[in-house]
């Protein structure tokens, strides 16, 4: 498990990270969410050791992360970049060999990974001739080729079309399933919501929320329910402890002040007419995000 605690960083007196602490567990995808300038990239660069921290610690399985540990990290920097004049396969093989794989092993791995990412046709093309989306895939291959234990990916989905997002998401999920700890930042909240097991929300250099996706959802759940029934649900307005948010004939969206109130509404609805659906409405990540960063 990768653990950050008490990380601080200032640039010229301006504190950009303040007491950053969270964990990234093996076998899980952790989404790192925050607005522009919230401190995501700075935090990730500190984890990778390409930026020095002012205070705090980064540990892996309880011991401070060393250069040797970082060899088993996979990293995708925010600003993309590979050697423009190298061929795709050659480049990924080179990185694998720098991580200690023999040439044949590196070639086998790189070829398989690039094919998995949909670049099988472009192996001998120069990086600079690829479209931005394909360069991004190559970049992901560069981060994954040495089978890292910990993956730190800065905006891996930005600039990808929806199909490519699915391809990359599948690759990341497969890595997590094999036991890698995966941390990725994104501002595409729908993608994060769909993929992540765990969430970390950062704003203004501080962690505003961290935990499993389901925990966060229930913490921020407001006993909001959705009722779809055959009859007119106008009676809801007169129920005590109920606040109707949206109403349209048999459809109603309402907040209940307690579980009992909600159950009472359900019973009355069944008495009044056929109920097609009655379900709690979970807050979306976008709602939770807006709420916690305020």
């Amino acid at each position, binding site marked *: 498990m990768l653990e950050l605690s008490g990380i601080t960083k200032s640039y010229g007196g301006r504190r950009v990270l303040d007491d950053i602490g969270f964990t990234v567990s093996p076998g899980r995808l952790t989404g790192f969410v925050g607005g522009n300038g919230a401190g995501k990239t700075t935090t990730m660069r500190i984890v990778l050791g390409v930026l020095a921290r002012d205070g705090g610690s980064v540990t892996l399985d309880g011991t401070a992360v060393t250069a040797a540990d970082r060899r088993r990290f996979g990293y995708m*920097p925010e600003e993309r*970049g*590979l050697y423009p004049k190298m061929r795709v396969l050659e480049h990924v093989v*080179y990185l694998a060999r720098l991580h*200690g*794989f023999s040439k044949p*092993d590196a070639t086998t791995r790189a070829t398989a990974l690039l094919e998995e990412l949909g670049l099988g046709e472009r192996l001998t093309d120069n990086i600079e001739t690829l479209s931005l989306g394909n360069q991004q895939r190559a970049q992901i291959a560069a981060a994954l080729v040495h089978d890292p234990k910990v993956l730190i990916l800065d905006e891996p989905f930005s600039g990808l079309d929806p199909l490519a997002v699915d391809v990359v998401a599948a690759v990341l999920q497969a890595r997590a399933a094999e036991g890698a700890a995966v941390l990725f930042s994104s501002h595409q909240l729908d993608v994060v919501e769909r993929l992540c097991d765990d969430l970390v929300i950062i704003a203004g250099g501080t962690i505003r929320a961290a935990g499993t996706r389901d925990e966060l959802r229930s913490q921020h759940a407001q006993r909001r329910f959705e009722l779809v029934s055959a009859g007119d649900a106008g009676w809801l307005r007169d129920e005590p402890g109920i606040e109707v948010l949206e109403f349209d004939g048999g459809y109603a969206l309402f907040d209940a002040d307690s579980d009992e109130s909600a159950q009472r509404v359900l019973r009355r609805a069944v008495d009044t007419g056929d109920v097609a659906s009655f379900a709690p409405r979970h807050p979306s990540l976008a709602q939770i995000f807006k709420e916690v960063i305020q």
Partner: protein
Amino acid sequence: MTASAPSFAQSVWLVTEREIGSKLRSKAFLISTAILFVIALASVLWGGFAAGGDNRIPVAVTPQTASALAAVPDAVEVTEVADTDAARELVRSGEVDAALVPGGPDPFGFRVLANDSAPGGLMQLLSITPSVELLEPDGVDFALRYFVALGFGLIFFMAALTFGSTIAQSVVEEKQTRVVELLISAIPTRALLAGKVLGNTILAMGQIIGLAAIAIVGLTVTDQGALLTGLGAPLVWFAVFFLFGFILLASLFAAAAAMVSRQEDIGSTTTPLTFLVMAPYFLVIFFNDNPVVMTVMSYVPFSAPVGMPVRIFLGEAQWWEPLVSLVVLLVTCALAIVVGAKIYENSLLRMGARVKLAEALKG
């Protein structure tokens, strides 16, 4: 398939291989190297043919005057004719530059016929001059001294600048594209630096050895054995001095380039180095006949690769001088590697504005 961390040497070699591979794939590099080799070959061959060409003076003689040129058989191309009239005819037609015909005052006993002016070269051959003793003979004539000095200066300047800028650009390319963040999460910074310096040194030495081979083959083919014998030792010393001189410069170029983050800014930190590389070239052109300047040059590490071989060629250096100068160069080279590596390590991950030298050294 698992990977164990590559050793330092393996990491260095992987970087070296990539540096060489990417340069050898560049068409611009291959073409400019080919042009350089062709120019080198052409100038050696041209020098050879110019030296070996026929520059004898065509002279007509009559049977009575033939003996007058017996002392200088190599300098004249003699055409013997029957009498004065025939000789006069040849001069008039331009087939010969001059003719020796019987008659004229003693002690010569012959006259020189020429078309419109006295033939200077021939007159000198026929003149009687007192013998001259030079107290300080100059072993090498001025033109040869100039061209050898120019040659070493130019080759050093071009090779050092070509590969110095290559290494600088490659350092900034890695910074600008952030590839460097991937590289140094895999291998130590020093391995990256060492690989880049080594790769470019191999390429530069390849070019130098190629040029030396062309010079040797060219001189042999055109039968300039004497010059070749004279150039042999200086060429070997040049290669040795260039090797360490280039490592010195390459470390500094890499360090200077690491201080900036964009190709556009390279000039702001590498310009002083560029001057350092150009200096020996200009010094050797202007001062190749000034023993004091040449002696100083041959000991200053940045100009020793040019200064010392030229002095060895001129026969002005004692046998121990190149050795002392080489030791000075080696010590400087070691220092440059230490300082260069420090600047490189401290600057490599600092993006954005140019890193100040004091900060880069402190770290």
